[in-house]
């Protein structure tokens, strides 16, 4: 035994670049895809979909992400409508109960099917429905993950590509700066910044944005280093294109592709970090529930009333795992396609 499983599988799993980009260059590890997919080199959503369809775990992940992002979008829009019109009806339209109503007759109700669906996840120490609070808080988590990863890609692309493409002292300086940021765990620096800025969701977003880009800068630098010697870049140079044009037309578009998988994984990591910060009481807005903060408050009633702590934690874990499942699979796919 053993021999077959080792030799028959020639498709190798790529080594994932770990949280800071110091580990392995994604494009460098040569991989080949299993037979049938080799022809599908053309990019596009169809290709991704065909590939993802083969993996049930990834499909489950896609479904969960769709539900999460879809709900967050709907509820987020409704909350904006409420903010504009001042009518609370809109934001509470689809939520099973008002997340902020105090109900001291139903404090710490265990998860039950009574009064479905409001008590499905039980109530917290103020008698508020945990399900309603989770659902109401979803837009913040979705927004945080998208904004932070999006800004990290933009900043990282700008700094990393510049450093890699131009090289020299610019490269040295920018990379030392990146190293300085990388030398502190993101969560610790985010704590410092968010505490200094003081309170609120926006300040927490700024803190996470300041912290999140270095990994991407490292990554894009590596991409630029390998791309700038490619023949088409040479050709572009020979035909008289300036640096700006080369960066825009060749380097950026070609380096963005491999980051998709890592960014998908990272969306989950942002949610995780965000919930940990909320757990510590950072970046909370009065009257707006947060997943992490919910767990933190429930801790006072632990272990006899376990649901206020465990249920928010499990929901966070489920969302993060969904992003990981999809990101994992995309990584296989993209690395395979790149070298084919």
């Amino acid at each position, binding site marked *: 035994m*053993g*021999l077959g*499983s*080792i030799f028959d*599988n020639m498709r*190798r*799993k*790529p*080594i*994932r670049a*770990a949280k*800071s980009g*110091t*580990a*392995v260059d994604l494009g460098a*590890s040569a991989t080949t895809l299993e037979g049938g997919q080799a022809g599908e080199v053309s990019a596009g959503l169809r290709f991704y979909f065909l590939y993802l369809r083969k993996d049930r775990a990834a499909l489950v992940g896609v479904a969960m992400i769709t539900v999460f992002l879809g709900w967050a979008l709907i509820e987020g829009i409704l909350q904006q409508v409420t903010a504009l019109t001042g009518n609370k009806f809109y934001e509470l339209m689809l939520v099973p109960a008002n997340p902020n109503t105090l109900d001291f007759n139903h404090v710490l109700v265990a998860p039950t099917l009574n009064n479905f669906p409001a008590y499905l996840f039980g109530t917290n120490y103020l008698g508020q429905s945990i399900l309603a609070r989770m659902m109401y808080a979803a837009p913040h988590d979705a927004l945080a993950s998208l904004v932070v990863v999006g800004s990290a890609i933009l900043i990282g692309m700008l700094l990393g590509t510049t450093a890699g493409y131009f090289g020299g002292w610019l490269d040295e300086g920018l990379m*030392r*700066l990146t*190293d*300085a*940021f990388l*030398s*502190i*765990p*993101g*969560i*610790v*620096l985010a*704590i*410092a*910044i968010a*505490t*200094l*800025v*003081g309170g609120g969701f926006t300040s927490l977003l700024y803190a996470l944005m*300041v912290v999140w880009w270095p990994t991407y800068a490292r990554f894009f630098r590596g991409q630029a280093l390998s791309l700038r010697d490619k023949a088409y870049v040479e050709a572009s140079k020979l035909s008289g294109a300036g640096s700006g044009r080369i960066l825009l037309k060749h380097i950026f578009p070609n380096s963005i592709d491999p980051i998709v998988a890592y960014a998908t994984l990272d969306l*989950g990591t942002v949610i*995780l970090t965000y*919930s*940990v910060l909320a*757990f*510590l*009481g950072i970046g909370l807005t009065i009257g707006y529930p947060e997943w*992490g903060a919910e*767990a933190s408050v429930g*801790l006072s009633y*632990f*272990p006899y009333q376990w649901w206020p*702590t*465990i249920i928010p*934690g*499990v929901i*966070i*874990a*489920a*969302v*993060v*795992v969904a992003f*990981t*499942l999809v990101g994992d699979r995309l990584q296989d796919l993209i690395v395979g396609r790149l070298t084919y």
Partner: protein
Amino acid sequence: MVSNIGFFLARRAINAVITILFLVLIIFILVHIILPSPIALARLYANNPHATPEYIQQVINRYGLAAPIWTQFYNYVVQLLHGNLGTDTITGNPVSTVLINYLPVTLELVIIGQVAGVLVGLYTGGIAASNRNRAPDYGVKAIYLSTWGAPPFLVAVIFQLIFAYWLNLLPSSLVVDPTLPIPAFVTGAPIIDGLIAGNWAYMYSSIQHILLPAATIGIVGFGLVTRLTRASMIDALDKDYVKLAFMKGLSKRKVVWGTAFRNALIPIITLIALIFAFSVGGAVVIEDVFDYHGMGWFTVQAIYNLDYPAIVAFTILVGLSVIAANLAADLLYAAADPRVRLT
């Protein structure tokens, strides 16, 4: 070879110093962007929302907050080089003495937890790779995915629930049983201090108390290690020398753990330094949940009290320990792989 390592160390040390200066500069500039006026800064230092203007002026004079930012930065760095990280605004003690008491506790916790997490992760990663696409692989994958996605406080709380409340095996909070006499302060790490003083009850109690938080910290890093080990082992198992080893008739166990594992280990060493950073970050929450009085716990208190010098000092200290861990990883890397030259 010796001079080679000396040269390498000197180079890395210079790099580390530059990185630390950058780090302090970043934090400094951020503070000044957020709070541009000396009065706002003084409010932060005063840690009193109702401070009178006279008191604010006093604070500005005491900390030299009215000086230009470059002077302030220079002063801060000079103070830092003297080991002075500022004054804790709550107790009035120097932050460095406060942190010196808490740092060893956290380091002990993180190192024990991380070593356990890495060892288990290496083993499970190897198992998954050598049984690729079969039951053990899927099992390991399910475990590492769920621990990867779980927020550290969830893992901590589940451990408390199972081991402290249901099974009643281990204590759920604190560093050591507070009724026991405290041994003399030598290193500050409770287990080692208990050992040095020969205070077995104290040592036993601190080991009991460290198990759950350390396991939680281990789980935080475990997912990363397993994942990378699996990927790296699969790469190694494809190599010709592994095929040769199989053809020689060696048993699967010998090939996997003897031949392939050693070569797969190399890229993982870099990761260990990363996980260290990851664990120190995770320790903040984990110490809070377990009421484990280390540096992370102290930081959470500082967050609640808006104790700004303590938070900045903690950030810089963590940065320092991560840089040290990176340096150690580079040295280990060179020791494990003779092809790597130290330059």
